């Protein structure tokens, strides 16, 4: 699972297992066990809801990364495939309820996947002839078209209020009726492991490998006798399939689908999630989806301004760590292999802890400015970091400002020694 997908020309000695389907089993077993015991640790209903949302986003982000990371195709309308799969599943769910069809609920996402793939085949037939701007623009156009159609074509999309259904009306599946959140959780987890495994195996097939080749140099891939267009088309269809599965799971979990599942905002969010996690590694989108869902659900409870922080985090990621969070983690692998990772711990603490405190100070200033400007008149009390104070007096501002200045100052002062330690940890040999 830690196999690097990108081929870095700077590292010619990289181990390549092109075309082989071998995989390390250990991470998958650990992931499966983790998925199984998670609900035992976090038992509340809201935690289950958050986790359901998280795993659905993971599937969606992995499917998106099949295009962005592995195929080099930037799509601005990918929510369409997930949304359409979801809408289709919802219709099947209602059909089962009306006509008593013998279709077990756990199989439903499969139909969403097939529908998503079917739609991807239609769109892909003309959009995959080029990567780059052309593909991005067609995806944007199709995305806007479908989002607009969802308000016009009421028969399928249900107009403004969307369509809703009830997952429990189907036949029980081995006695399980999916009444409880926990049953849905295990259903989603099952599909998560299955689709993640399939997507991983897809990236190891010759088609998946050729997708990387076409991303890096389409001309050369064509000289080798592969049609760049067909390779892109296959990736696109496979991605549409897994997006549809995510959509089907969404339909089961939320029992309602609206225009919101199709529009440009959802497409933007998945791009953000995937890039935040890191497009260069298979597990990048998983990290991205987990971090983003946590930010979205936990941070948005704490502050109204969470979108600003997420946006700033995103921009900082693009500017300073284009490899995303996964890239950040994998940066440490060489140091770890050299056995020098331990030497980094102290410099990290010296720099990152003050930096984090400084950033918290800045956040406090931002929150106070927001409260000062937009709070109701007479409402001068605000609570921040478990302390309640009067935002219209000078003292809190001075404290927050001082914390920000001192934190950032210390971080700046210790940054050179961190750089030194980093260089030292990544150099082979020497005393350590």
């Amino acid at each position, binding site marked *: 699972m830690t196999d690097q997908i990108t081929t870095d020309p700077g590292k010619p000695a990289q181990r390549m297992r092109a075309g082989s389907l071998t995989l390390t089993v250990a991470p998958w077993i650990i992931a499966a066990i983790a998925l199984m015991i998670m609900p035992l640790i976090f038992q509340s209903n809201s935690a289950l809801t958050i986790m359901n949302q998280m795993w659905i986003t993971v599937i969606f982000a992995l499917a998106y990364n099949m295009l*962005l990371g592995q195929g*080099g195709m*930037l799509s601005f309308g990918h929510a369409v495939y997930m949304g359409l799969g979801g809408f289709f599943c919802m219709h099947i769910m209602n059909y089962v309820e009306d006509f008593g069809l013998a279709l077990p609920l756990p199989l439903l996402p499969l139909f969403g996947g097939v529908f998503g793939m079917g739609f991807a085949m239609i769109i892909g037939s*003309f959009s995959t002839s*080029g990567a*780059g*701007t*052309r593909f*991005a*623009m*067609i995806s*944007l*156009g*199709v995305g*806007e*078209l479908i989002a*607009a*159609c969802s308000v*016009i*074509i*009421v*028969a399928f999309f249900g107009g403004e209020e969307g369509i809703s259904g009830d997952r429990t009306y189907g036949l029980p599946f081995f006695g399980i009726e999916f009444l409880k959140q926990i049953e849905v959780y295990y259903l989603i987890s099952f599909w998560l492991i299955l689709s993640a495994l399939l997507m991983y195996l897809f990236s190891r097939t010759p088609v998946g490998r050729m997708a990387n080749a076409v991303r890096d140099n389409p001309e050369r891939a064509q000289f080798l006798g592969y049609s760049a267009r067909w390779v892109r088309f296959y990736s696109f269809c496979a991605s549409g399939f897994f997006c549809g599965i995510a959509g089907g799971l969404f339909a089961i979990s939320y029992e309602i689908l609206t225009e919101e599942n199709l529009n*440009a905002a959802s497409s*933007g969010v998945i*791009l*953000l999630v995937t*890039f935040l996690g890191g497009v260069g590694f298979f597990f990048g989108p998983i990290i991205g989806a987990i971090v983003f869902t946590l930010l979205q659900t936990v941070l948005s409870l704490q502050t109204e*301004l969470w*979108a*600003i922080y997420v*946006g*700033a985090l*995103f*921009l900082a990621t*693009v*500017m300073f760590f*284009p490899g995303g969070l996964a890239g950040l983690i994998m940066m440490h692998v060489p140091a770890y292999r050299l056995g020098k990772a331990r030497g980094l711990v102290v410099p990290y603490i010296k720099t990152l802890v003050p930096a984090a405190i400084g950033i918290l100070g800045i956040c406090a200033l*931002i929150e106070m400015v*927001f409260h000062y*400007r*937009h709070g109701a008149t007479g409402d001068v009390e605000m609570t921040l970091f478990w302390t309640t104070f009067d935002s219209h007096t000078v003292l809190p501002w001075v404290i927050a400002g001082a914390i920000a200045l001192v934190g950032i100052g210390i971080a700046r002062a210790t940054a050179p020694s961190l750089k030194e330690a980093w260089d030292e940890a990544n150099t082979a040999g020497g005393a350590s």
Partner: protein
Amino acid sequence: MELILVNLIDGLVTGLLLFMLSAGLTLIFSMMGVLNFAHASFYMLGAYFAYQISLALGFWAGLLFAPLIVGVLGAGIERYGLRRVHQYGHVPELIFTFGLALLIEELVQFIWGKNQMPYSVPEVLDFTAFSIAGNSIPAFKIFMIFISISIFIGLLFVLTKTRVGMIIQAALSYPRTVEALGHNVPLIFMGVFGVGTALAGVAGVIAGPVLGTFPGMAFVLGSIVFVTIVIGGLGSLWGALVASLLIGWITTFAKSYNIAMSDILNGLGFATPENMSENPLRDLWTVTSPQIADILPYILMVLILIFRPAGLFGKRET
């Protein structure tokens, strides 16, 4: 007949407004090869800055200073943000501008709140210029047309007749050669980015009072601007002009003439089904042209990309 004339003027206003955005965007694209997703955000910033300035100094000071501030801001973002991301390749650049668009929208909400700002037409221009068959044309619209056309002529003059314009054009096609001749190409890029965003700022200043100054205004216009330059051909100024006017007129006419799909289908010889509420195609029968006016540009773009990928006036494949 009179209605056609009124619609022509309305479409012209919309089209020229789009052109002011797409002109800057298409210049920036031909320069860096990257679509600036945050372009419409600079348009929004223009409107908000102008509103803030107009509170203190009046509309005309806003028209003068807001685009300048936006331009300086744009140049700064190019210098300290985009240039840094440039080394990682095109996709991160695109994603950077995308993130920037999100962040600017959030920041605007942070500073000015979510409500629409009371930014209105200045009193000097708040009268009816003339009326056609009972439809009055406000003077501000004429003013908008005047500003946009003079900007287009000015831009064309600078790009084709002056020395600076020549160097810019050369730098767009052969940046390395121009650099070898001793010109500071990164500075030129920064300048073009600044001017492009300033143009978007001007569009914001004059569109704010008419279309409303609210945090969603960038989102409303954002994707249409891409559609415009893709239809016109990426990197082509004339293409941007033609496509802007085309989109302006198509949407205006589709909105003002209520053409129902059922009439077209009846005209083609299909009979209207009797039981409409049960028919699976009922939505197709009830579609009218004002309903689909806003998605017509997207249909046009997808068709153009399929059949003529270079766009109407473009020279290179996208």
